[in-house]
C-alpha cells in the first residue's frame, strides 16, 4: 500500500489520479481521519478519455483541498465492491496531508509504497 505525504497551503488543491476498475464492479471510497476539517476531498471525474475495451481500467481523478492551516489529516482511499463489505479492498492508497499557510506551501512527496 502506498503512503504519500504532501504539504498543502490553505486553499491549494492537489490532484490525485487512481486506476478505476468500475467495469469489474469496483469503486473508490475514502475516509478522513485526524483533523478532518483540515482538508476537503472530491472526485473531479474520469481521467483523460481513452479508447477502451470492455473491462479495462479507467483513470479516476480526485482533488484534495487544503482548508485549515495547522491541520494534519490522513485520507485513506480504498477500492472496494460495495455489495461485498467483507472483502479486502482491491487497492488502497493513503495520503497524509499537512496544511500550512498559503505562503509556506510546498509540496513534498516523502513516502512511497
Amino acid at each position, binding site marked *: 500500500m502506498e503512503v504519500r505525504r504532501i504539504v498543502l497551503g490553505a486553499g491549494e488543491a492537489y490532484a490525485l489520479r487512481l*486506476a*478505476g*476498475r*468500475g*467495469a*469489474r*464492479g*469496483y*469503486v473508490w471510497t475514502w475516509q478522513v481521519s485526524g483533523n478532518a476539517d483540515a482538508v476537503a476531498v472530491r*472526485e473531479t*471525474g*474520469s481521467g*483523460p*478519455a*481513452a*479508447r*477502451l*475495451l*470492455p*473491462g*479495462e*481500467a*479507467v483513470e*479516476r481523478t480526485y482533488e484534495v483541498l487544503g482548508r485549515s492551516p495547522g491541520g494534519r489529516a490522513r485520507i485513506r482511499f480504498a*477500492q472496494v*465492491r*460495495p*455489495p*461485498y463489505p467483507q472483502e479486502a479492498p*482491491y*487497492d*488502497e492508497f493513503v495520503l497524509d496531508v499537512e496544511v500550512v499557510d498559503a505562503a509556506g506551501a510546498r509540496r513534498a512527496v516523502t513516502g512511497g*509504497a
Partner: protein
Amino acid sequence: MPEESVQTVGELRAQLLEHGARWSVSEHLADEDPVPRPALGLEPGLNLTPAAEAGAVDLRALVGRESGNPALTRRRAAHGLLPGTVAGPGRPAAVDWRSRWGWPWLTRVKDQNPCGSCWAFGAAGLVESMARIEHDVWAPRSEGDVHDGLKSTCGQGGNPETALDWIRDNGGLADPDCWPYSTPPPGLPAERRDAWRAEYTPSWDRSGRTVRITDYVRLGDVEQQKVWLDTVGPLTACFDVYDDFFGLGAGVYHRTSDRLAGGHCVLVVGYDDAAGCWLFKNSWGTGYHVGGYGRIAYGEVNIDYWAKCGLRGTNIDPWTKRRLHTGSVYESGNGRAHRNFEMAATAGGGRLRHWWREGDAPFGWARAQTFAGDASGQPAFTGTTYNRNMESLHVTTGGRLRHWYYEQAVGVWRDGGAFGPGDAAVGSTPAFIQSDYGKPGNFEVVVRTADGRLNHWWRINGAPWTWNDGGRFGSGIAHYGPALVQTRARTLDLVAARTDGRMQLWWRDDPNGFAWKAGEVFGSGAVSAPCLIEGQYGAADEDTAGNYELCVAVAGGRIEHWWRGNAAGTPWARGAVFGHDVLAVTGMLQGSFGFNLELVVLRTDRLLQHYWRDGAGWHEGAVIGPA
C-alpha cells in the same frame, strides 16, 4: 469510444513534466514520433461491431428449423420462421430465460473478480445457455479457457466477439476441470495484479471436453434481437458503465451520472417491453442488482449501439453428457443438429455393429461398421474425452472383457485388448463409464461374475494403460449391467437385481478405503439387468444432482421405470409400467429432445426397439433391427 489524450511522444513528455511524474519516455523516441501502443493481443475497438454495421439478418435462414425443444419450435412457428408457417400476432411482451416452460436455462451467476474479464464471462455465459437450451444439459464452461487461451492479462479488456472467434477457432470452450478461470494469487500487490497472467495449460484431453461452436450471429436490429431472444436464446451485449450503475438494484437502469467508469459486457437473457428494458445476467456475483440480474432501459448507455451476439448449433462434448446415458446407446455431437444417437449391438457370430440415428426428422436408424468377433452379449457403448472417440466394452465368449474403440481422427475401429476376470457372466453387459479420477478420467467397469458377485475393474488413463482388478463385492446377484454412475461426490453408485427379483443399490465409499457398501432395496420381479442414469429432472442448476432414472425388464415382457430424487432425498418410486415382449433394456439416455427419456430394448424376437417418454408418457418408437 473516446479518443486518446496523448498522440505524440512530445505531448507525453510535456504531460509527464506537468504531472511531476517519476518516470520518463524512452530516450530513443523523438518528440514527433507517435506514442508506441504495442498490441495487447486485442486491438481496441477492432472487433466490436456497431449495430448499424451488423444490420438486419435473415432469421428464417439462420433459425428456420425445428428445435429439439418442442416449446421453442412452437415459438419459431409463431414468428413464421419455420417452412410453411406464417407469422402470428407477434412476439411476447416479455421473455425471461431464467425460467421458461417450467425449466431453468441459465447457469449460476458468476464473479469475474478481480479481473477485467467481463467479455469472457459474457461469451462463456452464451455458450452455457445455448448448450442448455439446445441440448437440455447443464454444461458449465470455463471463462479461463478463452481468457487465458487468448493470453489475456487480468487487467486486459476484450470483447465477446474476439472471445467467440477464439472459441470457434480453437475447438470449443472447455469445462472448468480441464482448465479453470483463475485470478491473481493472494498477496500479489495491487499494482502487479493487472499484469498477471495465467500460463494456459489445459488438460491434454481438452478436445474431448469442449462445447464446440460454429459461427455466431451479430444482431444489430433491436426488434430482431428480441425475436432471437424469444426463439433461440440469450445474447451478449456491451455498454458503458457510469458511476451510478454500481447502485443498481431493482428497477430499470437509466443513467444519472456523467462519470464514466468503463466499458462492460454482460449476457442479455430477456426483455420486457412493458418496462422498456433488457434483462441481463452480470458477472459480479449475486451481490449486485437482484441476485446478479439487472434491468437496463432500451438504448441506455450505448447498450444498443453495439451489435449483440447470438449463437446456435452448439456441439456438446461426451464428458458433459457422461451421466446422461448408459448401456448400448448414447447421444453424440455428430450430425447437423449435433444430436445423433450412437448405438452398438450384437450382429451375430460374436460381431458387434455400430448403429446411428440422425438427429433430424425422420430420425431414421442406419447401420455402420461391424467390429469385434467374440462378443457374448450386448456391449456397453460410450463416448470419451479421447477426442470424442466411441468406446465399446463387451463380455467375451470366454468370460473376459474386451475393449474396442473408434479412433475419430482416422475413422477406424481398433481392438483395445482383453482383460478381466475370466468368469464374467457370459451374455451379460458390463457397466462402463469414464470417471473424473485423473485427466483423462479413469475408465471404471463393473461386471457380474459367474459366482453371482460383482467385479470392479479400472484403468488409469495414462501409460502403461493397464487394467486393474478393483476386487469383488456383493453376492446373490442375478442380473447386472449398465447401471453405474459416478456421483457429484465422486463416489460410484450402481443398481443390481438380486436372485429374489428385488433391486439393490450399491455404492463405493471412496473416502473410506473405496469399500463397496450395500444400500437401499426396492422393486420386485426384475428379470434382467437394470439401466441407470442420473438425469436432468431435479437438477435445478449445474451443481445439483438430477434424479436417478432406472428402467428394467420385469416378468411378462414389460418394462418398469423407477426414479429417485437425489437432490430432494425422495426415495425410489415406480413411475410407470409399459412395453411388451421385452427381454432386456440394453440402453438408456436423456438427450436433446425436450428432456425426454429414450430407451433401446431387446425384444423376445431379438429385434431392437426404441421407446421414449415425453410429457404425455411412454411411447413405442421405431423397431431398429436385429441384434
